[in-house]
């Protein structure tokens, strides 16, 4: 956009933005600053909190191995889900980008559908498949492979499965956007210069699709690491993730100062992943899937 396209600076843009800016300030920025302060307060035995500057919550959060283990477990589950999404998502993205048939529009539309199909429905749908009276057990019993239903659900594996099912469309869409933007002539040029199909893919297509791969991975990792619904529905008692801790502390134990400290840990850990990413790739890539 050239300079002549826009009006001279004045009060008008600020007036237009003021309601949204006020909303973001009052509902996000100030509340996050507030919990930063709140995390130094103390919960007293009677339930109200004691205003002051106490390090107790932070000492507990940063030194108790219980919290550290769950944090590592959370990062491990999110990383495993992201890697699986890459493995499962690249080929379909490639197929959609390269297909020239009229199926392409349908495939893209189908790819958008899971965003709309309720997250909680998609998560709980696995109970119908893997549960004790789910499709898989009924089928195996009928085949005679097993004599009584297997307990497949409620472990780390099914949490990862649920996350992959939830996150895969984000990954495919981001890789697809990247692949679709590649100039086809580049691959042709590589081929005419003697590359085999695989070489052309490895030397031209794959490197050019890395921005989408990175954006997809960031989304999958951050969304995966911040969830508490999937472990609650598909995980066992030992598969809690960090957000489950936050939920428990705030909603069940009502220890709000401690819950604030835990939330901030999650914010700092995931925030630094986003920062690291935006330093290398820029946040703009993420907005591309909206075009």
């Amino acid at each position, binding site marked *: 956009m050239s300079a002549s396209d826009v009006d001279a600076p004045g009060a008008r843009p600020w007036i237009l933005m003021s309601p949204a800016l006020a909303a973001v300030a009052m509902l996000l920025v100030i509340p*996050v600053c507030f919990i930063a302060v709140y995390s130094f307060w103390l919960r007293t035995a009677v339930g109200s909190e004691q205003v002051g500057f106490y390090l107790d919550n932070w000492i507990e959060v940063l030194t108790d191995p219980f919290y550290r283990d769950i944090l590592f477990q959370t990062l491990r589950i999110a990383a495993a889900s992201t890697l699986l999404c890459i493995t499962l998502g690249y*080929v379909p993205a490639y197929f959609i980008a390269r297909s020239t048939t009229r199926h392409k529009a349908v495939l893209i539309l189908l790819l958008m559908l899971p965003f709309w199909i309720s997250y909680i429905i998609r998560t709980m749908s696995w109970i119908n498949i893997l549960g004790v009276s789910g499709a898989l057990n009924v089928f195996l019993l009928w085949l005679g492979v097993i004599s009584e239903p297997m307990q497949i659900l409620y472990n780390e594996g099914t949490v990862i499965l649920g996350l992959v099912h939830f996150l*895969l469309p984000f990954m495919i869409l981001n890789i697809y956007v990247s692949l679709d933007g590649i100039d086809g002539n580049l691959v042709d040029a590589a081929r005419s210069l003697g590359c085999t199909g695989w070489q052309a893919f490895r030397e031209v297509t794959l490197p050019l699709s890395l921005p989408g791969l990175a954006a997809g991975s960031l989304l999958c990792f951050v969304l995966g690491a911040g969830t508490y619904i999937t472990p609650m529905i598909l995980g066992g008692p030992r598969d809690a993730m960090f957000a489950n801790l936050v939920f428990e502390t705030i909603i069940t134990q009502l220890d709000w100062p401690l819950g604030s400290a835990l939330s901030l840990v999650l914010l700092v850990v995931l925030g630094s992943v986003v920062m690291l990413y935006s330093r290398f790739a820029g946040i703009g890539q993420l907005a591309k899937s909206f075009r």
Partner: protein
Amino acid sequence: MSGGQNIVTSWSLIRAFTILIYLFMFLPVAVVVLLAFNANQFGSFPMEGLSLRWFVELWNNDAIVRAFKTSVLLGSLTAAVSTTLGVLTSLALVRYDFRGKGLITTLMIAPILVPEVVLAVALLLFLRWLEMPKSFPLLLLGHVIFTLPFVVLIVQARLVAVRRDYEEAALSLGANAFHTFREVTLPLIMPAVFAGVIFAFTISFDDVTGTLFWKPGGVETVPTQIFAMLRNSISPEINALGAVMVVVTVAVPLLGVSIARRMAAALR
């Protein structure tokens, strides 16, 4: 050359893999919809014929009907507020030049960069400190803040593509800024505004992460109702509710997309 043969076989492998992945994405949901019509009283396999009884039970279940009404009301209000704020902001960000634009843009998409749990905790505790307890307005504020970035991104993308000339023509013919917006800009960006409404509604209708923190006791939306029902065990009613949910969250956007397409085509 043997390459041609290889390309054909590897392409069919790629296609087969893609089909498998699509099955993985959709089969479980298809099973939910299928089981919703199950006549079997435990709602599990094997199917014992088709029946609509679970939908009838849904209809007669006051708690579920109430949750549905709450979700629709919340989604509609969220969409209205979020889209209004989002359109105004996009206008400012695309049509004007001012200092700190980069920072403002980042600030506007910040609600989706911050993990939803953290956003939920911060908003809940801050408003509680301001002595505003869990309530429907809190739920609405929360939904507005995390749908706003999506509306801004969508409307901004469209606005960038609308040429400034039309607006300048209107202005030079004597229309004031508000008239220009109403008569020229708004009709041109209508498809994106509409998409924003649909997006905000659907995200709000589907949300469970923030809603579980913000909802007052006794108030349920459809997803939190399902979540509460899952606590007991999976029942055929959940599958029926799931089927309804799938229809709402899929049919609304699909309808929206086709209307938006028609609008965009009419503008050409």
